[in-house]
């Protein structure tokens, strides 16, 4: 299951969907809006995506993950829109028979979302300023 969504990410529902009686391990990553960046206090982040392209790339990442690791389920969800501090922006969850695969696939998933998905963020500071986060050139 992969997608871009606009609503709150329901962690428990995702944990439920990751469940699989043949799996002994679930690894679950959540990215959360932090209350600060390297310089200032942050109030929230606005996320914007090239949604159709993100869908394509998430599909590719999903295929790679199933090809490279013996896992049972893979979920990757990125939220867009305005998120306040403490809200979840991205989730990657993996279930597998053994934990090594789940850790590796989960870590690969989030690394590649960050490197390859056309998503941008603009931080809203407590000072009232807002600024696009200096990103990295897409590496797809």
């Amino acid at each position: 299951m992969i997608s871009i969504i606009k609503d709150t990410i329901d962690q428990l529902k995702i944990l439920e969907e990751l469940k699989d009686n043949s799996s002994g391990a679930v690894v679950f990553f959540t990215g959360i809006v932090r209350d600060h960046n390297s310089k200032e206090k942050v109030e929230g982040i606005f996320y914007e995506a090239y949604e159709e392209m993100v869908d394509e790339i998430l599909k590719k990442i999903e295929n790679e993950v199933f090809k490279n690791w013996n896992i049972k389920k893979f979920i990757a969800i990125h939220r867009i829109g305005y998120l306040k501090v403490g809200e979840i922006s991205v989730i990657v969850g993996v279930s597998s028979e053994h934990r090594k695969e789940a850790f590796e696939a989960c870590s690969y998933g989030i690394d590649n979302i960050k490197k390859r998905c056309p998503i941008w963020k603009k931080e809203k500071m407590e000072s009232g300023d807002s600024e696009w986060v200096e990103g990295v050139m897409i590496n797809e």
Partner: protein
Amino acid sequence: MNNSCEDRTLKLKVFGILREKLKSNTLSIPINNNSISLEELKNCLKELDPHLSMNEINFVFAVNKVICNENVKVSSSDEIALIPPISGG
């Protein structure tokens, strides 16, 4: 090159800081051939500057949702997007 930016029209999707500077999420670039290379397209965009701030902000092209190098040729039937540095997660 100067008069290559006429006639047919490419519709570009723009995002993030570029979208904000352009105050629009699309950009129409007229061309006078059926297709032009992304390199030529980039030059067209630069000519439209300073309005576009294209010289300040780094970006690459995605054509039909795939990142392409600037030798690739595009026509009005392609989905073209300008991808500034990304910061998802």
